[in-house]
């Protein structure tokens, strides 16, 4: 089976990383999931895409990150040539209206609030993966 397009998860909380990976694992899909532990690591990925590496099918971006926060990462992504067309889904705990509006203003493609309930979270993960890696069409390199 060919591995599907990759997913970049930007998330600092190790527990959340673990749970997200498990949630994706539940559906036994084959997409590779890369993890950036903070904003700087996420921007390092951007540098690699600029170097020629294929960008992921979707970036799952938390907002509250150490060093460089999620909204700043989004802004830099959208300002760069390699990152401006990459789908970004904000996946965060905050449902604050300011955050939602700001994220869309900076060019987020979607905004999803992480449910506390694990079953619901698994469901959300499955929908994200299905939608962004299978249903959603991307430009070819």
């Amino acid at each position: 089976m060919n591995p599907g397009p990759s997913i970049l998860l930007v998330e600092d909380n190790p527990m959340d990383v673990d749970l997200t990976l498990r949630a994706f694992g539940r559906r036994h899909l084959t997409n590779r999931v890369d993890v950036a532990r903070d904003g700087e690591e996420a921007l390092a990925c951007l540098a690699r895409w600029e170097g020629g590496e294929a960008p992921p099918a979707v970036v799952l971006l938390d907002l509250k990150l150490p060093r460089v926060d999620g909204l700043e990462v989004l802004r830099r992504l959208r300002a760069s040539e390699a990152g401006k067309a990459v789908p970004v889904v904000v996946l965060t705990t905050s449902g604050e209206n300011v955050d939602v509006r700001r994220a869309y203003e900076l060019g987020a493609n979607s905004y999803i609030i992480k449910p506390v309930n694990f079953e619901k979270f698994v469901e959300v993960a499955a929908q994200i993966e299905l939608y962004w890696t299978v249903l959603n069409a991307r430009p070819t390199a």
Partner: protein
Amino acid sequence: MATTRFNASLRIAEAAGMFVALAGVVVLGGWALGSDYVTSVNPDWMPTMPLTAVTFVLAGTSLFLLPRGTVGQGGPVQRLSALVLGAAVAAVGVWRLALHALGASSPWDTLGFTPPPGEDFMPVLTALGLALAGAALVVTARRVLHPPAQVAAALLLVLGWLGLARYLYGGDTSGVPFLMSMPAALLFAVLGVGLIFARPEGGFVQIWNSDTAGAILLRRLLPTAFLVPVLVGWLRLMGERAGWYGLETGLAVFAMSNVIVFASIAWRTGARLHREDLRRREAEGAVAMERDFSNALIDGLPGVFYLYNREGRFLRWNRNFERVSGLSASEMLRIHPLEVIAAADQARVRERIEEVFTRGVSDVEAAFRAKDGTETPYFFTGIRVEFRGESCLAGVGIDIAERVRAEERVRELNADLERRVAARTAELEAKNRELETFTYSVSHDLKAPLRGIDGYSRLLEEEHQERLDEEGRRFVRAVRQASQQMGQLIDDLLAYSQVERREVRLAPVDPREVLASLPEICREEIRERGVELVVDLPDARARADAQALTQVLRNLVDNAVKFSSAAQAPRVEVGGRVEDDRYLLWVRDNGIGFDMKFAERIFDIFQRLHRVEEYPGTGVGLAIVRKAVERMGGRVRAEGEPGRGATFTVELLHQP
């Protein structure tokens, strides 16, 4: 009175002129008929020459026309005619005088008639009188009034009088050069009087006509002075000629008679003048009193008083004005009103002064500048008044320094208050930002570990089931339940703080539309629980914030559905009505109700009346309702009875 006398004077002049002219005509008639009685009055006396008679006709006509041509309603025709006729009279007089001086005779004096020899020429005195009369007529006919004309007229009167007196005393025939006929003497006298009265706007008659004491004296004394001595002299002469007494006695009687007559007239006139004087003094006293009163009044004014004319010359002011301005009375007379106004205010004050003269009244606030340069805020008023026949400005200025200082203080206090409010607002805004950061942290940081707890307990339950016994599995379930509940609690708290922080915009809102927009998930729950939802709302709108009202209605309906579901036939009713200026909206259920002693506490946050196992919830829903309603400026109250349901009433403003 004065006008009547004035006009009467003109009539006298006219009458005199007419009399002289007619008399001249009569004398000519006498010549024609050959009647001595007409031409000489007494056949023994000398006759009036025909030329003299003609000249008197001219002079009389001129005098008759004079008043109309000069001061009356006549025009230039009358005036010019009077002038020409007068000139003709003068010419005749001067021509005859010149012939007398040359010792020549005139063939024209008789005009063809034949008077007795020796009496067939115009005497020198008559020629002189005619020249005088002509000159007086010419000068009087001019527009401007000349005193010499009056003097000439008076001389004419004296001349005529002298001639008349002679005839009265018998008409002696000696001293031929001074003779003149009796009619000529009479007509000269009349002409003199007429000329004097012809211009009453000046000269003797102006005084004669006035109301002064001197005029009264003149009017009484003058006629007597002219008539009495002549008459008394005639009586004396008659008595002497009759041989009743000698020369000395006659003179004594003459003198005594004059003394008696003049003394009595002088006494009566003096007494009258005395009374007039007393009256005048009384009037002056009243005027002085009036002046003292107005001085006391304006000096007693609390501010400065001023009265000045259009040119800006001060006519009256009070002592306060001198005190405040530091100007002396003589300086006041020299300055312009704007000189006591601060330079910066002068333009404005000038405008207001102009306004007083054009519109009648105005006022202005301006700084009063004293001589030493000190400036004091004043409030000036001004009204237009008529004073001594001209438009003036009268007004009062009040010192408003105290008021201006008070206003300044109020302004300062306001500015200070504004500063403090601004500082406080900034403080509150900072607090608000802090609170937002806090809630953000709550939503983000508190939920993340909770998700971990739930996620891992779920994984434990699923993936390590075989290693847990029944009790272990029960513990894991309890952990998950607790974390779910905590998640709910955090969400509710966020919603509560959201209501607190969100901006509220009041607008007309129809509660029916709000109710219709409740999420489907709500309706589903209502259906699932078998609750009958009855909506009965009026066709009206409330003043509310749509989003806040949505939250209120949703929470109240949720609440009602939750607590009525245990009833036999659960029923939730949403109703409303307009009462005065209010819109009352209520949600009623037939559920378990509550004890009225909890009616207030029921809205407190985290306040629960039932155990979680019975009715799940966090105790935040009703707190959100109260907070949202209060933020819309409304009120909410709860009524209930245990086992018989509850009613929650929201009171909002009605939007007409």
